[in-house]
């Protein structure tokens, strides 16, 4: 059956012309290849630089997922996590986008944005759900860099943020921290950016950043003070509580203001240095100028005098006590106390200007010895006075003591050694002793004796009264009571006297009635006087009115 001819009855196919080339099918794989290639090219073009960042912990970071963001725009992704060779830190590999090439440069900072709850508030809440991401702040440099050390805390100031930074110097940091707020008129205008110990270790330098445009309020004369804590003051005006904000009480803060009165209004330059004062009052008081050290020797107990106690000149606070040391003088066998104090002569204001002009300079500073010399001659003495009677705290007062004994004062000595005078408290003690003496002179003994005699007399008299007079009085009173009782008995309603009286009166009434009957009878029968009274007719028989027996009683 192999060579059979086609059956004649089968239908004839319709002959048509070819329409397209067979090889067109190869366009499909070519197209697919093109698409694949375009993907590769796209990925190639999109791939930016690869950088590594080291962090202390990889908490919240996930390979292939955690984005890197700049101003909340995703510029890359974490592609790998591993430990550094020394196992101290975590190395995070980040693939940056092509468009983010400029982030692989020096000065770019990376940090992990996690939800943070601090005293200053809560930040990064959005990351609670979406997971942490790496935040970025780019610098100015064009120099390429591919290995970075990540920050553990978000930077307080982003690059290019408007504003100025200033440097504050203070003795200690207090409760301030990076991120602590900076207030101007109780509005937050900046924050603490960093702090560091001074090179000599004698202070702390703080760098703060004040956001624009408020940075213009920082002038050359601006005073900064530590606004941490609560300032409670009790004065004649009542209790006053002063804080910047509740947050500063807990977390600390810095406040600044211009001093009152005329001052330099020129805005301060970038990175200008300022002093950070402890409180507002100190900050806003006139500048202190350099401190000077003086010394005083007291021959008395200074119980109640503490370091930091104020030193006042005619009531103006010009410094504070810095040391109290006990000394021994073998010659007098005494224990004088050496009190050291720093004073700020500039606080004397105009007086200082004039005195300093007169005293002249020494070692580049005002000659304190020559300045005090004439004053000491006129009776200037240091005294330890009681500042507070309740607590017995002392302060040092520099005052002109009238009729002060002449004191030796060495103008050339350094430090200046001011002569002292017994303090007001000592005087008070003397006066107290006087009073005690006077009290002692009072003859309490004889007074007591006399008083005792007098009292004995009185006792005797009273005894007499008790034994003689009082019993008599008692008998008299009893008699009187008896008399009154008799009277009372006689007059009472049920007494025999009263009853007799009643009987008598009844008899009298009956008698009167008999008399009336008699007179009536005599009026009608006057003859009776002669004949006497006839006998009474016999009584009439009773009517026949037998009382009927009650009905129903009969049977």
């Amino acid at each position, binding site marked *: *059956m*192999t*060579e*059979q*001819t*086609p*059956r004649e009855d*089968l*239908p*004839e*196919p*319709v*002959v*048509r*012309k*070819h329409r397209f080339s*067979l*090889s067109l*099918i*190869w366009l*499909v*794989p070519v*197209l*697919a*290849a093109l*698409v*694949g290639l375009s*993907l590769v090219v796209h990925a190639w073009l999109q791939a930016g630089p690869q950088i590594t960042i080291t962090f202390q912990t990889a908490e919240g970071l996930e390979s292939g*997922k955690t984005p890197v963001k700049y101003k909340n725009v995703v510029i890359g992704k974490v592609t790998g996590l591993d430990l550094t060779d020394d196992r101290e830190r975590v190395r995070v590999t980040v693939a940056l986008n092509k468009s983010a090439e400029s982030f692989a440069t020096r000065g770019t900072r990376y940090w992990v944005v996690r939800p943070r709850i601090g005293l200053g508030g809560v930040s990064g809440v*959005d990351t609670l*759900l*979406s*997971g942490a991401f790496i935040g970025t702040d780019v610098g100015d440099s064009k120099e390429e860099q591919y290995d970075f050390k990540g920050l553990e805390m978000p930077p307080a100031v982003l690059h290019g943020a408007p504003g100025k930074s200033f440097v504050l110097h203070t003795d200690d940091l207090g409760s301030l921290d990076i991120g602590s707020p900076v207030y101007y008129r109780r509005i937050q205008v900046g924050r603490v950016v960093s702090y560091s110990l001074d090179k000599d270790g004698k202070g702390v330098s703080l760098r703060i950043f004040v956001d624009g445009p408020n940075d213009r309020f920082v002038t050359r004369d601006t005073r900064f003070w530590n606004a941490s804590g609560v300032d409670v003051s009790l004065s004649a005006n009542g209790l006053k509580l002063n804080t910047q904000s509740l947050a500063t009480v807990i977390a600390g803060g810095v406040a600044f203001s211009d001093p009152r009165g005329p001052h330099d209004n020129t805005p301060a330059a970038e990175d200008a240095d300022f002093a950070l004062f402890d409180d507002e009052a100190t900050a806003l008081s006139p500048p202190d100028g350099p401190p000077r050290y003086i010394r005083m020797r007291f021959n008395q107990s200074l119980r109640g005098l503490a370091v930091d106690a104020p030193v006042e000149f005619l009531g103006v606070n010009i410094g504070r006590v810095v040391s109290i040391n006990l000394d021994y003088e073998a010659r007098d066998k005494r224990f004088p106390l050496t009190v050291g104090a720093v004073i700020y002569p500039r606080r004397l204001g105009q007086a200082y200007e004039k005195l300093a002009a007169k005293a002249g300079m020494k070692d580049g500073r005002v000659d304190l010895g020559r300045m005090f010399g004439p004053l000491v001659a006129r009776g200037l003495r240091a005294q330890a006075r009681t500042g507070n009677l309740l607590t017995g705290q002392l302060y040092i007062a520099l005052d002109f003591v009238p009729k002060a004994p002449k004191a030796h004062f060495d103008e050339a000595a350094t430090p200046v050694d001011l002569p002292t005078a017994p303090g007001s408290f000592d005087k008070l003690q003397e006066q107290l002793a006087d009073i005690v003496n006077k009290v002692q002179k009072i003859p309490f003994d004889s007074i007591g004796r006399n008083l005792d005699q007098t009292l004995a007399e009185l006792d005797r008299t009273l005894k007499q009264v008790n034994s003689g007079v009082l019993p008599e009085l008692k008998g008299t009173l009893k008699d009187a009571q008896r008399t009154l009782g008799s009277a009372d008995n006689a007059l009472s309603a049920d007494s025999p006297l009263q009853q007799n009286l009643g009987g008598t009166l009844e008899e009298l009434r009956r008698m009167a009635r008999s008399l009336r009957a008699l007179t009536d009878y005599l009026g009608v029968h006057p003859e009776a006087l002669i004949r006497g009274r006839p006998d009474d007719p016999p009584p009439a028989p009773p009517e026949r009115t037998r009382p009927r027996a009650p009905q129903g009683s009969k049977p």
Partner: protein
Amino acid sequence: MSRAPRAQELGIIGCHVCGLVCRTPAGDGAGCPRCGAALHRRKRNSIARTWALLLAAFILYIPANVLPIMRTVSLGDVDDNTIISGVVELWIKGSPSLAAIVFAASIVVPMTKFLVLGTLLLSTQRGSRWALRQRASLYRAVEFIGYWSMLDVFVVALLTALVRFGFLSQVEPLPGVVFFGLTVVLTMFASMSFDPRLMWDISDDD
């Protein structure tokens, strides 16, 4: 050896579409007189077409696996998954059976199709007579399982439509699923365009 006569030898040709048997036309480009479909002795250019489609499918299969196919957002946590990472995640999160199904549908089936079709094409081109019957059944198997590899695409499409709870939970399709769909479609076309009769043509040529 006696064998069944061929249609060509008998001078007849069958229509692919309506099954009408008619005489072999004189030239190319003949059409079925009943339904108008083009008449061919064999599927036209079958080997080349199958090769082309298979190649295209293979090329597209690469981005289908590399690119993520699905993005799940739950409580702001964005998760992009490729096919493999989805399988791994399913396995880790305690659904090994689901992971196996997805793995079979998305990896095993397409790869099997590439391999089987490739083998069939090669052996047919080379006129091999090796295991003809098994090859025929392989071909039938490939045609049969072809549709099932669309599972992933269906899953993504369904999830995208069903899981829309805004911030809480959301599923989005990603470009990978397009490539995967194209791969599946192209492999299906490839297996369709392959003419199994070509295998037997050779065997009868002796």
